[in-house]
């Protein structure tokens, strides 16, 4: 081969999806590509998508696991709609993902896995790598398994070990294609397999084989460069949503000087919160894996009664089980944060897929009048702020708070401008230690928050519980007017939170044809679509709600400034119902529950459907 002259094209943004069998290591491959891309200074957003089964039958359509990343020299908000590159490690991955590939997009396929059996499992009648199915795409089909086995020939590895390294080959090839360094992954492999040097060696050889394949084979016309994005100055790292929730809560614990107590029960997609917090015992974080969802929240209520910042995290089915206890936390007015990492429902639904259909459950899913503030995280990075803010409200207002996240935000990642603890605000608690006759339901004027008297404090002995209590003495009371008054007080207190939250400021036109109103993880797709519509000369704005209860004070006023209100949600119109009910306006919904986030183009056409092209 003649001396290689690498043609490098500069591009602004790229969308790659790694797809393969559940056992092919696609999540690891994707996260390694992400790490490297982050360090190289691109903005990025990721979307891991995997089946609930740990090992679905090999080669089946149900067993396909994928990891999508968009990276850019510009600031981006979503993992991208259409793919520039699809890495399809087997026929099932090609089958389930091909429809998302751009025209003339690149397909990288491991020929070795396109056996008759696998083709049949995936429902291909003939081999798409060999017929005209893929005409119009740039197909790079190669036998990765064979190349890797040549690369490790002298190592005497089992064929299983060899085929398990093919994901590193694919990663190496992608590193070459997009001009990334292998260093970060090499040091990762050294750490990960520190006790098994032969795996370090075989994986690094596979990685390099992939990289050098790109370099030396003329199959690929050119490689691409994505210049650094222009970020705000500061120190960055990449962070996932669930991790950011944990860090936000730990920060709030420090800023309130209340120990963090976490009680949880394993549930997808919230379990990582339990894993991460239990790994930080040296921060004096106490974690408790309870026997069930109910015990998890009850333990947290017990800890909150004793002065801890109480946290529990779960997903929709877990919230259903915790409902009675959430009511207890409402009536005893204790500071708790209840994280719901939403997933597809109802019932067990689609555990690993995303949805936003628990909003009304968060607001109303309890017996009696039991108002709870509800906060929603819009991006992986926003999970930090949303968690900190949830804890602040819980403690300043002495109330349980629901923090809504979802599978998309929880598992997605993006660059995070690392905050300094010094810059975060202090959180004031209502702990009383004066030792006089303690009245548990004595409230302060500003927040209507009750005093917090902790067991172990002399002279503060008192009883709380699920029975209605007298407004003044705190004793059990069946007095009709007292019950009415206490119910009012519990509402007033939550409504007062609106005094402490920012007003909503729409992005884009201040008045105009259409306001797209969103909440939670639809943020990225809405913002990108609205920006494109603005570029196209449309009179459009975007407002995004972090506070679902109470709403920002000026929301009603803002809504009146636009001729149309469009509310995209991954449910059948829950925020829509709230907005129409509260503000009596004819807002319209854009709704889907595919278990996948909205694409930018879906939102864009939603806008067009209302105001015309």
């Amino acid at each position, binding site marked *: 081969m003649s001396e290689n002259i690498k043609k490098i094209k500069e591009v602004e943004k790229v969308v790659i999806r790694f797809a393969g069998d559940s056992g092919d290591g696609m999540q690891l491959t994707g996260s390694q590509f992400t790490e490297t891309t982050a360090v190289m200074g691109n903005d990025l957003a990721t979307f891991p998508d995997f089946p609930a089964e740990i090992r679905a039958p090999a080669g089946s359509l149900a067993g396909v696991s994928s990891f999508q990343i968009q990276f850019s020299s510009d600031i981006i908000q979503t993992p991208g709609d259409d793919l520039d590159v699809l890495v399809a490690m087997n026929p099932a991955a090609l089958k389930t993902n091909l429809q998302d590939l751009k025209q003339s997009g690149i397909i990288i396929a491991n020929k070795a896995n396109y056996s008759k059996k696998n083709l049949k499992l995936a429902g291909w009648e003939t081999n798409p790598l060999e017929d005209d199915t893929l005409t119009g795409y740039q197909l790079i089909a190669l036998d990765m398994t064979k190349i890797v086995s040549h690369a490790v020939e002298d190592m005497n590895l089992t064929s299983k070990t060899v085929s398990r390294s093919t994901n590193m080959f694919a990663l190496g090839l992608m590193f070459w294609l997009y001009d990334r360094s292998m260093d970060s992954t090499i040091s990762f492999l050294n750490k990960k397999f520190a006790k098994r040097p032969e795996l370090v060696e075989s994986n690094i050889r596979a990685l390099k084989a992939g990289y050098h394949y790109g370099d030396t084979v003329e199959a690929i016309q050119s490689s691409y460069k994505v210049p650094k994005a222009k970020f705000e100055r500061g120190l960055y790292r990449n962070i996932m949503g669930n991790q950011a929730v944990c860090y936000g809560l730990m920060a709030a614990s420090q800023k309130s000087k209340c120990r963090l107590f976490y009680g949880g029960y394993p549930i997808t997609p919230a379990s990582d919160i339990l894993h991460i917090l239990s790994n930080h015992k040296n921060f004096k974080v106490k974690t408790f894996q309870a026997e069930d969802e109910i*015990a998890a929240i*009850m333990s947290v209520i017990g800890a909150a009664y*004793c002065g801890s910042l109480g946290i529990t995290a779960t997903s929709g089915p877990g919230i259903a089980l915790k409902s009675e206890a959430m009511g207890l936390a409402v009536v005893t007015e204790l500071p708790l944060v209840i994280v719901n990492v939403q997933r597809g429902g109802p019932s067990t639904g689609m555990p690993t897929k995303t949805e936003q259909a628990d909003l009304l459950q968060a607001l109303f899913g309890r017996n009696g009048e039991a108002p709870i503030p509800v906060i929603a995280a819009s991006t992986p990075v926003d999970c930090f702020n949303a968690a900190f803010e949830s804890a602040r409200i819980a403690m300043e207002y002495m109330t349980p708070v629901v923090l809504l996240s979802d599978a998309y935000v929880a598992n997605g990642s993006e660059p995070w401008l*690392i905050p*300094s603890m010094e810059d975060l605000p202090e959180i004031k608690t209502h702990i009383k230690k004066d030792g006089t006759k303690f009245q548990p339901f004595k409230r302060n004027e500003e927040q209507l928050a009750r005093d917090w008297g902790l*067991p172990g404090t002399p002279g503060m002995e008192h*009883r709380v519980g699920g029975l209605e209590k007298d407004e003044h003495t705190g004793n059990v009371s069946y007095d009709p007017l007292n019950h009415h008054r206490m119910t009012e007080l519990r509402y007033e207190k939550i409504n007062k939170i609106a005094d402490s939250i920012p007003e909503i400021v729409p992005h884009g036109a201040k008045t105009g044809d259409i306001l797209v109103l969103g909440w939670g993880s639809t943020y990225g797709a809405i913002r990108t679509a609205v920006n494109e519509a603005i570029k196209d000369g449309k009179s459009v704005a975007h407002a995004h709600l972090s506070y679902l209860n109470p709403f920002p004070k000026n929301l009603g006023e803002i809504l009146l400034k636009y001729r149309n209100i469009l509310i995209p949600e991954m449910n059948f119109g829950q925020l829509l119902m709230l907005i129409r009910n509260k503000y009596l306006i004819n807002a319209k919904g854009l709704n889907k529950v595919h278990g996948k986030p909205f694409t930018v183009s879906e939102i864009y056409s939603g806008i067009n459907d209302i105001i015309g092209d």
Partner: protein
Amino acid sequence: MSQVSESTLTRKDFISDQDVRWCPGCGDYAILAQVQKVFPELGIPKENFLIVSGIGCSSRFPYYMDTFGFHSIHGRATALATGAKMANPDLSVWVVTGDGDAMSIGGNHFIHILRRNLDINILLFNNEVYGLTKGQYSPTSSQGHISKSTPLGSVDYPFNPPQLALGAGGTFIARGIDRELKHLNQLLKEAHNHSGTSFLEIYQNCWVYNDGAFSNLTEKELKMETQLILEQGMPMVFGKDKDKGMRLAKGNLEVGTIGKDCKMEDILVHDEKNKIHGLMLSELTHKDGFPTPIGIIYREEKPPYEELLLNQIQKAIQIQGEGNLDSLFQNGHTWKV
């Protein structure tokens, strides 16, 4: 500060200003009085007591005690108490529960607190009936029990609480009776002294819905023949003349009459630490032809959960140093812009 120091605490310090609303004559009164009598004698500052309950007649208990108290929801007291004890291990935490609360709706939490062995005392007021909901049979009601929900008699086989507790890994399992005050007083103190989860079942008469459920154990004429009072290191004898005792025959417990069909040396000596004995003794719950064991059935020393947790935290700090959030956030791959 107005609080009374521990040395001068009296029963009065533990009586709240609330009217007790149990039915007049309820066995709960006697238990409340004993707890109020025992607490000042335990050498614990008053502010360190926390009483947690679920739902049911007995679960109103915290309102009548002038301590910290939490009347929670049905079946969940043990779970709430677990969190409280973990958050503040200095507290003396007492769970007051009933047979519906602990054995039925709260069965899961009940077995798991025993398995974990938190240093918490559980008082199970067992009246073998649902009182607060007005008279349905409970998981400890005997088979054939006629109640509002079992007009033809219950077909359920009942739970045997001490045996359930043993099976769940309980480290202190005892039984008392509402009418045996001195004995109950002792058991409350022993439960407190035990480091780990103490389970004290208290037979308690509900004269409205299940009157006389334990009369064979409490009537003067009968009780000498029906109570097997367990004392550590003492032979398991009973009867008016202390002439009956428990002996082993073919691997099972049997009642023997000393001087008739057996000798004093044949009578088993009670060893709280013997789990096999504990299992056999707990088997004697409502068993025809046998006395009912009261006292400490089983006791085992095992580090409590919260101690192990605190050790882990300390060790993590020793190894990793006390956590610093700024360095945690900056850990791993970072880059400067």
